[in-house]
């Protein structure tokens, strides 16, 4: 049982990293949303498995929140925003695919090396979860840097938060306060983002963040 618990947790956390890579090379917004929803499902499974293994029923709540909000509500809402703005065909990457993927691999390797070496004394399940979680966080950051469309930056940020939730649930017995707050913060963040997207729409005909930059010129 111990072996199975370990392997499944490993599989799911590794799956999360894999889906993060998939996010990196999506160049259309709808497919990006679908992959993000997939990531949320994997996260939810991973959290639920942790809840079962650790015998910590409150983690099921976190899993449910991940499933309902991140896999269903947010993708659907963003889908609508994209449809309303008519930007679904847009292909927008700042850095081309090859370098992005190579950078992503380097970041994952870096996270593994750092985390596994540093946490040599922690229990194996938690430490490998943490290494995967750091990889997901790094890939989320990379995505935010290499995209310039507001919607994909938001998705990059949320995938980064997925990594944080993986880390928080992997740390056995971490107080509930934090999990709820993380989920809560995602919600609040989403509201803020929603407001912003509409405000950006009021002023510009695009949600391309670079369009905002021209207001910067001449003031620097």
């Amino acid at each position, binding site marked *: 049982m111990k072996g199975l618990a370990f392997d499944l947790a490993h599989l799911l956390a590794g799956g999360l990293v894999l889906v993060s890579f998939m996010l990196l090379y999506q160049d259309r917004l709808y497919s990006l949303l679908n992959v993000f929803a997939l990531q949320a499902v994997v996260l939810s499974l991973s959290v639920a498995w942790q809840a079962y293994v650790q015998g910590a029923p409150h983690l099921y709540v976190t899993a449910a929140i991940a499933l309902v909000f991140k896999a269903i509500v947010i993708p659907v809402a963003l889908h609508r925003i994209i449809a309303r703005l008519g930007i679904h065909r847009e292909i927008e990457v700042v850095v081309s695919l090859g370098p992005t993927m190579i950078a992503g691999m380097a970041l994952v390797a870096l996270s593994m090396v*750092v*985390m596994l*070496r*540093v*946490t*040599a*004394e*922690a229990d194996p399940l*938690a430490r490998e979860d*943490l290494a995967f*979680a*750091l990889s997901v*966080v790094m890939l989320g*950051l990379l995505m*935010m840097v290499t995209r310039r469309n*507001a919607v994909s*930056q938001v998705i990059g*940020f949320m995938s*980064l*938060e997925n990594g*944080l939730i993986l*880390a*928080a649930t992997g*740390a*056995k*017995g*971490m*107080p509930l*306060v*934090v999990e709820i*707050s*993380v989920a809560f*913060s995602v919600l*609040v*963040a989403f509201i*803020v*983002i929603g*407001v*912003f997207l509409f*405000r*950006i729409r*009021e*002023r*510009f005909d695009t949600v391309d*963040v670079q369009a*905002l*930059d021209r*207001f*910067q010129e001449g*003031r*620097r």
Partner: protein
Amino acid sequence: MNLSDLNGVTLILAIPAASAVVLALTPGYLVSARLNMLSAFLTFVSALTLFAHKPDTGSYILVDDLNIVFIVLNTFVAFTTSVFSASYIAHELEIGRLTPIQLRFYHTMYQVLLFAMNLALTANNIGLMWVAIEMATLTTVIMVGIYRTPEAIEAAWKYFILGSVGIALALFGTILVYMAARPVVGEGLGGMDWTVLLAHVSAFDPAQLNLAFVFLMLGYGTKVGLAPLHAWLPDAHAEGPTPISAVLSGLLLNVALYAVLRFKLLLDANSGAIAPGPLMAILGLVSLVFAAFMLYRRRDIKRMFAYSSIEHMGIIAFAFGIGGPLANFAGLLHMIMHSLTKSAIFFTVGHIAQVKGTQTIADIRGLTVSHPLLGWGLVVGVFAIAGLPPMGIFMSEFLVVSSTFAREPWLAIPLVIGLLVAFGALLLRLHGMAFGEPSGSNAPVKASWAPIAAHFALVLMAGIYLPPPLVAWFQHVASLLR
């Protein structure tokens, strides 16, 4: 809740929280501006009672000699800013930059922000502290974007993205601290309780603590505005309402710095971990020198003072990084002086920008001729922030420099260069704005002088004479910081 629970801490949390609800329901802006003031004042008074009676340390709330200084400073500047805000927004409403609905929203957010900052300062649980700082970030993001101009939206978006990334890194660091604590403290609340952590930190795995601190330093450092993570700060200061610029510079940066200090104390207590001081000192020094040179190229008055905030947060982080009784004392004093001076400068600048109708430095000329009080207020403020005697910042900067000479003479060279460069830049810009042929509107200004005068008086007093009990208190707090 029974009456015995009613202590200073519950009050400084409950008053802003309750006022936020009340203000959300109050339609008239005159009433709500006054309510805002009243609530901020009551919060300040409640914070003062903490000196007399410190509540017991619980698993969520901690009041010790270190954070009382932050809380009192925080609530005081929040109160004076609310006074300034009342006259500022009256003008914004007149010229139609804000609608009554937006104002209601603005007042509510102001109180939520105060609540979040007080919670972050009193939290004993590192998870709770993180939640509070995130909440403070989100409220300020909304307030920065309140004017809805393209520039304001851009600034808010940039602030939101960079602030969220910083805060995400800080959460990862918080989780790592818990992971390091778990084998020693056990599972559950204890692993996030700061006092418990401090008691057991010497037994933690140093490698994990090191890694955690790197994340925490970068995460909360983004919120402090340390270079190279400062990119959000000038935009957020320049495009939001001026009271928010004052609160950001005077308070929120301090709150983030307080979080860094708490974790620095943890690392200091573990003999195997890296010394956190040098990392802070380097980041602080880089911010100071970088911001000092950036000051020369600024064309927007609020943006210029935002860079000056980066410079001063750099000095403060540097002083705490150097450590030792004298440098910590200087850091604390400088933090207080900077908060008071910078918020007073923003009050003055807010009125100047309103009466002249512009924030562009080149379009503001001859203020001492057209508006003597405002003009000389700006002169006093810039003299104070540039570190001229007899103002308090001169004294704290002098202490920082002399303690650096005593400890690490080489570091004093870039420090002094940074200070001098910033000094030159500020005076250069001041000259054009304050003197010469006046430009723009000559209309009389309905300013609120009391907060500006109160802040400058305090700064002047600190520069001339610090009462011995206050010095003893600061020395005591500085010794807590190692």
